[in-house]
């Protein structure tokens, strides 16, 4: 196949073939990182605007480095460094981005659908870097890439996603991607954060982590998003650790080849025991390295078509 999309808004609208195409392209860009000159001229003369209405360091930095390695010029606009704060309409956001002559826009926004809205209205390529609780496609792609790199393929694997699923765009994008590539997915967490309704997507829901851990090939621990939590969803950190935290004792139930993943930033001692995060089963740093290759691939593909 050939790549024909100018935007990456979500994993939901991608075919399995398109997902695999991005992952294969990322292989080629990962190789670039081993060269003497780690920069290629693919997006020379293009301007990328990193537009982050919500704070983010690692995703923004990863996109910035990816764009730099592709020879694009990068402008960073964030809610705190500009006069654009609360109250700005998306349409005004779009006008500002157009006025900046952006060829590619990486958008992080608190509202679901923000990236789609801009993609329909701007000629520039829109890359969704997280829109509310909707999708975070490049995170899912780098997770898929990391799993595929370690296990050879995704099809047939059993993946547990643990924690705050309800508010998590990472979970949604991962669910779509994993199912499309043939994995089995079990969501684990308290019923307030992992409601049964998710089963309609084609996944299994469990509220007992100890029943799930012995059967999985990958356990992906999501960050407890303190900033999004309201009291009625979340009883307390102590109770969460006791019921759902990946402690050393719990980790003994994992298969020896089970991968431990976390999109970061880690709350050490909450979602995961600190030693486990640095242990042999952890691929958390691989996720960061692969994120660069995956984002180079996405920027090259979406920014490289007319």
């Amino acid at each position, binding site marked *: 196949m*050939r*790549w*024909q999309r100018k935007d990456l808004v979500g994993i939901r609208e991608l075919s399995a073939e398109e997902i695999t*195409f991005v992952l*294969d*392209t990322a*292989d*080629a*860009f990962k*190789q*670039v990182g*081993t*060269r*003497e*000159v*780690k*920069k*290629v*001229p*693919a*997006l020379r003369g*293009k301007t990328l605007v990193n537009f982050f209405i919500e704070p983010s360091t690692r995703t923004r930095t990863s996109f910035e480095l990816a764009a730099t390695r*592709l020879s694009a010029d990068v402008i960073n606009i964030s809610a705190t460094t500009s006069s654009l704060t609360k109250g700005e309409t998306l349409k005004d956001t779009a006008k500002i981005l157009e006025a900046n002559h952006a*060829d590619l826009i990486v958008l992080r926004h608190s509202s679901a659908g923000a990236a789609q809205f801009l993609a329909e209205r701007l000629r520039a390529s829109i890359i969704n870097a997280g829109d509310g609780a909707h999708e975070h496609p490049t995170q899912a792609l780098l997770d898929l890439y990391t799993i595929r790199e370690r296990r050879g393929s995704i099809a047939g694997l059993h993946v547990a996603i643990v924690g705050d699923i309800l508010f998590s765009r990472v979970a949604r994008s991962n669910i779509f991607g994993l199912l499309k590539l043939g994995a089995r997915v079990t969501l684990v967490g308290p019923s307030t954060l992992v409601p049964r309704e998710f089963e309609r997507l084609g996944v299994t829901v469990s509220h007992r982590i100890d029943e799930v851990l012995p059967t999985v090939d990958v356990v992906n621990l999501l960050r407890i998003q303190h900033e999004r939590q309201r009291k009625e969803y979340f009883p307390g950190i102590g109770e969460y650790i006791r019921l759902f935290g990946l402690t050393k004792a719990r980790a003994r139930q994992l298969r020896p080849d089970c991968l431990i993943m976390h999109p970061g930033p880690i709350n050490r001692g909450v979602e995961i025991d600190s030693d486990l995060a640095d242990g042999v089963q952890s691929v958390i740093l691989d996720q960061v390295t692969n994120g660069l290759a995956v984002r180079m*691939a996405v920027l*090259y*593909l979406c*920014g*490289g*078509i*007319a």
Partner: protein
Amino acid sequence: MDADAIRNALRRMAHEIVERNSDLASVVLAGIPSRGVEIARRLAAFVEEFEKVKIETGVIDVSMHRDDVGQRAELPMVQTSRLPVPLDGRTVIIVDDVFYTGRTTRAAMDAIGSFGRPARIQLATLIDRGHRELPIRADYVGKNLPTAPGERVRLRLENVDMEPDAVWLITGART
């Protein structure tokens, strides 16, 4: 061109590579995907047959170094480059199937530069169809095939296309 003619052309090119490079151990054949990789493999096999020395081969993908990124409606798959690193002091021979405008060769030279600084870069191509747009020439040519700009050269290689080796000139085709 049929399979015999292609084999004879590649044998002759392999002989020329041997004649022009006294230090064959420093030579790297870098094929441009996908047919250039297959041609590089065959050239290396001939050189090994003639001289009993092992020739290094590699893959050099040019997609990221092309000058028309952003001007096409769709993008083909980028293949992963594989070259011995570093290339410093080596003789790198770029291997392509059809030599046309020279833009692919320029991109390949740029890509090779990101792996190191070779002592020299040469170019081997099975078909030279003319119509250069850049000041680049080939060092080893299997066959000169005069063409008009509107014509197309169709090349098929076993192992790549699952068809027998053959080259056709298709006239009257669009662009």
